[in-house]
């Protein structure tokens, strides 16, 4: 008898796991909340009703198109050498626009570094997002101006900031809520799991919005988890739901429900937006090394913009004039971004010392003075 067959025999003999204890999602496909099919058909969901006016649908379409255009422009600017790096959101527009448009003015978003679509919904100037990718700052916008926190690069760290912020909302007795954005890779981070714990035990009004785009650079979701990610929530004692992340209406309805659930004092919710990263992780990445073109092709058929356009056309909710106008606006945005980035000046090197502390610090002040004197010595030399 070979070793292999012994192992097989042992496995066979193992007692069956009761169905109630089964933790894998392989035997039954988890339910995916969907309100707009890839074919552009509007469907209803008993738990997440959504009524939308034609104007709202057109507005969402416009958001999706402009966000994709902005993203494409940034990718092009990286290729032209104007940006050092870009993290594209291609494919994730619906997850970001749907959740972003579910927020109220007083709500607060804590993004990763890929939430350009959420930033758009928060009315953050797109040019603000590009400074860090051009290398003129590390973010630099005032997060309290639009309640959109700075991009956070260390994976998952911002979920704790979001939770702490939400704890503050509770202390203030306010009815605002917070969205913590993260991805499937981040779900493995200790910080994310600690954020789940803190949010749960303190009943913090935070919605954990996980964009499962199937890939953490080169690692598929199966490297991060053996169960559908939304089910992680139950272990922490709060609801989890999986939504079609390419369906802007479902993302809007589910996130709106989750935010209201959280702001009403019911604690956190985990939303897993099931989507796909159509592009590379960043402009430095090469996905051909680790995934098949067939997979990307299959997801193309689920495109978030196409399905909404189909609905608008099929139901006669938008005419050609509308689509032409959105395309023209998209061109304008591209132009503005292009020109804005190209004319973005390099900061004076003394920026290095400017905001290390909010109050004077002897060492920083000393080194700044040394640098200024050193730099001036070159200028003095030029005069000779």
């Amino acid at each position: 008898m070979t070793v292999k067959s012994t192992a097989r025999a042992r496995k066979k003999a193992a007692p069956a796991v009761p169905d109630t204890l089964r933790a894998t999602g392989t035997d039954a496909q988890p339910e995916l909340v969907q309100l707009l099919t890839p074919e552009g058909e509007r469907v209803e969901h008993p738990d997440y009703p959504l009524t939308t006016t034609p104007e709202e649908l057109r507005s969402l379409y416009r958001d999706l198109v402009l966000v994709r255009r902005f993203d494409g422009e940034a990718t092009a600017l990286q290729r032209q050498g104007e940006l050092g790096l870009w993290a594209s959101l291609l494919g994730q527009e619906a997850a970001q626009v749907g959740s972003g448009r579910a927020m109220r003015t007083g709500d607060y978003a804590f993004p990763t570094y890929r939430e350009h679509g959420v930033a758009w919904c928060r009315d953050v100037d797109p040019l603000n997002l590009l400074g860090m990718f051009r290398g003129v700052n590390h973010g630099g916008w005032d997060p309290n101006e639009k309640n959109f926190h700075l991009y956070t690069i260390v994976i998952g760290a911002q979920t704790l900031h979001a939770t702490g912020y939400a704890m503050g909302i509770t202390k203030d007795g306010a009815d605002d809520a917070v969205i913590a954005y993260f991805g499937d890779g981040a779900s493995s981070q200790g910080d994310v799991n600690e954020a789940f714990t803190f949010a749960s035990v303190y009943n913090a009004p935070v919605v954990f919005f996980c964009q499962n785009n199937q890939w953490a650079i080169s690692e598929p979701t199966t490297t991060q988890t053996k169960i559908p990610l939304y089910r992680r929530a139950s272990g922490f004692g709060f609801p989890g739901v999986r939504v079609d992340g390419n369906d802007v209406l479902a993302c809007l309805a589910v996130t709106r429900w989750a935010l209201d659930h959280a702001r009403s004092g019911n604690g956190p919710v985990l939303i897993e937006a099931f989507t796909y990263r159509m592009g590379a992780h960043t402009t430095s990445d090469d996905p051909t090394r680790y995934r098949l073109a067939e997979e990307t092709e299959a997801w193309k058929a689920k495109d978030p913009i196409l399905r909404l356009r189909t609905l608008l056309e099929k139901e006669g909710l938008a005419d050609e004039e509308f689509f032409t106008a959105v395309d023209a606006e998209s061109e304008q945005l591209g132009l503005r971004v292009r020109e804005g980035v190209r004319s973005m000046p390099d900061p004076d090197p003394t920026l290095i010392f400017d905001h290390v502390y909010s109050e004077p610090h002897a060492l920083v002040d000393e080194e700044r003075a040394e640098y200024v004197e050193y730099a001036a010595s070159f200028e003095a030399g030029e005069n000779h």
Partner: protein
Amino acid sequence: MAGQLSIAKALNDALRKSLEKDPKTVLMGEDIGKLGGVFRITDGLQKDFGEDRVIDSPLAESGIMGTAIGLALRGYRPVVEIQFDGFVYPAFDQIVSQLAKMHARALGHVKMPVTVRIPYAGGIGAVEHHSESHEAYFAHTAGLRVVTPSNAHDAHWMLRQAIESDDPVIFLEPKRRYWDKGEVGATADLALHDARIVRPGTDATLIAYGPMVKVCLEAAAAAEEDGRRLEVVDLRSLSPVDFTTLEESVKRTGRAVVVHEAPVFLGMGAELAARLTERCFYHLEAPVLRVGGYYAPYPPSRVEEAFLPDLDRVLDAVDRALAY
């Protein structure tokens, strides 16, 4: 504040005053509520200020630190207690990558008024991870302020100043001195980052902070019996360092010995020696010497006395400095 207070009580009183003064001040940490912290520094505060302001946290240091940052973003002024020095490392990323850098990342648009209290250093016969001196990691990180008191008066006033600071402050508490008593004055007589000459002298300058100040004062007293007058400077602040006070002292005495519990290699002493050598080169009669822990994990408690600088090791270094 008449009478003698222990450092522990002086800290407790500083936290109480800070909670009274600013309703946005909140305390967070493990076991800081009903128990009053494992060292009782927060004793009675939850009873008087409520669970909403003196918060028992889940047992997750990164979570404590990360949520404190979030609270600060919402306008709160969190004071975090890390239970022991060796338990801060799970929070290290949040401290170094987030807390320290947030103000610069935001180009000054947000402030991080977070105080991180950490009982540190050894000498209490503890098990592993309960006796470490990790000040150099924090002082090396731009964006953090790092301070450590050595006596009850400074413990009280420096903690209040740290909490009032709009920048993050790592507040290192010398745990083996928690029960040392001293007079706490009615006002802070120094700014948070000023050093203090705690004993004037003429022959050499001993530079110490936190738990080693007492050792240096004892060494100076012993040296005086041999006719040597040693000046002792309590550094108090490790970032920034008050080089003005140090430079003035060392130029006067011509000799300096830096004493800390942390390993000598790449410790605070290395930076102080380098900078004092630059600033005081023509006044120095001897190289700046260092006394500290060895380049080894903090040892089991039965041999920690051999690891920690004591009066004899300090005086041995003074002898070497004077022999030049």
